[in-house]
């Protein structure tokens, strides 16, 4: 790790020997974290004023199995993990996860399918095997193109909030192809 260039490293504690080695790079910022963020409100400056809103807390509370089968335990763990990661990506956000590892992500795109294409591309770039991976989306799939492309790439389970007038198209595709799909009802936009 010491040989890699990074700006900031945050950890709850640094053993003294580790600290000495890490401090060898003068500009590297090392932060010992004392507590978790407890913010319940966030701010954004717009139009010369300030917008405030509650922070986007929590993960799935509703677990609606809407696909062609229910997800297995490994998929469920990955789906929950992917959904949290997705929440922390700029919209439109897609997170591809396998075995608790983020192996592809697309974010900040103006269309969802573009984010997915980016995510799949990223995974391929570093030779990740998408077979059996799961996909989280920060908002609904507007068409069935996302599940279609995901399926072609090897994705077997999806998690998304739902809410599109064309939800059924994506659901139908999953049912026809034996794919799991969780609908949470909880959107995680982050602009």
């Amino acid at each position, binding site marked *: *790790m*010491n040989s*890699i*260039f*990074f*700006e*900031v*490293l*945050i*950890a*709850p*504690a*640094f*053993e003294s*020997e*580790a*600290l000495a*080695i*890490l*401090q060898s790079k*003068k*500009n*590297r*910022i*090392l*932060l*010992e*974290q*004392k*507590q*978790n*963020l407890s913010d319940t*409100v966030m*701010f954004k400056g717009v139009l010369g004023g*300030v917008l*405030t809103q509650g*922070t986007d807390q929590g*993960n799935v509370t509703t677990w609606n199995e809407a696909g062609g089968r229910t997800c297995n335990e490994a998929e469920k763990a990955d789906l929950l*993990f992917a959904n*949290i*990661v997705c929440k*922390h*990506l*700029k919209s439109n956000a897609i*997170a591809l996860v396998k075995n*608790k*590892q*983020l*192996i*592809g*992500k697309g*974010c*900040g795109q103006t269309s969802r399918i573009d984010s997915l294409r980016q995510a799949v591309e*990223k995974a391929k*770039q*570093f030779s*990740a095997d998408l077979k059996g991976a799961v996909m989280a989306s920060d908002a609904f799939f507007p068409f069935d193109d996302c599940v279609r492309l995901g399926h072609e790439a090897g994705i077997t389970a999806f998690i998304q909030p739902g809410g599109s007038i064309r939800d059924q198209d994506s659901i139908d595709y999953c049912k026809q192809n034996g794919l799991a799909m969780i609908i949470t009802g909880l959107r995680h936009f982050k602009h």
Partner: protein
Amino acid sequence: MNKTIRTALISVFYKDGLESLIRLLHQQGVTIYSTGGTQTFIESLGVPVVPVEQLTGYPSILGGRVKTLHPSVFGGILGKREDATHVQEMEQYKIPTLDLVIVDLYPFEETVASTNDEKAIIEKIDIGGPSMIRAAAKNFKDVTVLAAKTEYNTLVELLTQQQGATTLEQRKEFAAKAFQVVARYDVAIAKYFDPNATLQFVEASGSPRSLRYGENPHQTATFYGDLTSLFTQLGGKELSYNNLVDVDAALQLICEFDVPTFAIIKHTNVCGVAQRATVKESWDAALAGDPESAFGGVLITNRPLTPKQLQL
């Protein structure tokens, strides 16, 4: 316009650091008015002092709730020295001008932090103090106001260099600071009455941190908040605007996880994250997810770092 200070009203909770200022004022022939503990303190220095009761004709009443709230005090602060009617009325009612007001506020926040006793807390809501500070700051054309002990030394220097006078510009600067002190004080009180009130910006303005620049070098930036409660910085250069934005994203992500996790953040996005049995394995997997984007990123983990885990 330079104004020579001839009279001063001093009433402070914290007396430390006040002595040299009082001695200087005495030496420059300033008449000092004071109340309660401050009066006792000034007398103990052997400096003559006029009790405010002598101005108001009232003792401190209602358990100290009403001491200075009187036309003789507020007239002396608010009266415009260049307004013929004001001057005439002040003479008519025998109100002396007050050129310098040094007042700090009851320690409200400290009291809230140390007790749940509502009665004690309510009594620490200062009424006379903020009123005098606001009055003096409003009349900065004629009056110098100090609302915090951090300003004592500045005034000592100015009065020494300028033969007991302050300039209009200096008085306006003191006024601006005084209004900030009062604003922040009111925010603390409002937060006590409603802890959910969204007043963080005003609340934090007591300790703004100037950053080298903003998102880009041509943009100025300031951070309002308290980093020291979150971190101890153990190495490296000063955190930049972009660092802070990414560190915030990193902290928001990491608090979602309990099991060993390592994450890499780039421009607020997660570019690598993984959960494994150990920090080392988590780091390897997080990096493998996108080794290219990790360059120059912000790294975060929720477990202590040891040499072994760093592959050192």
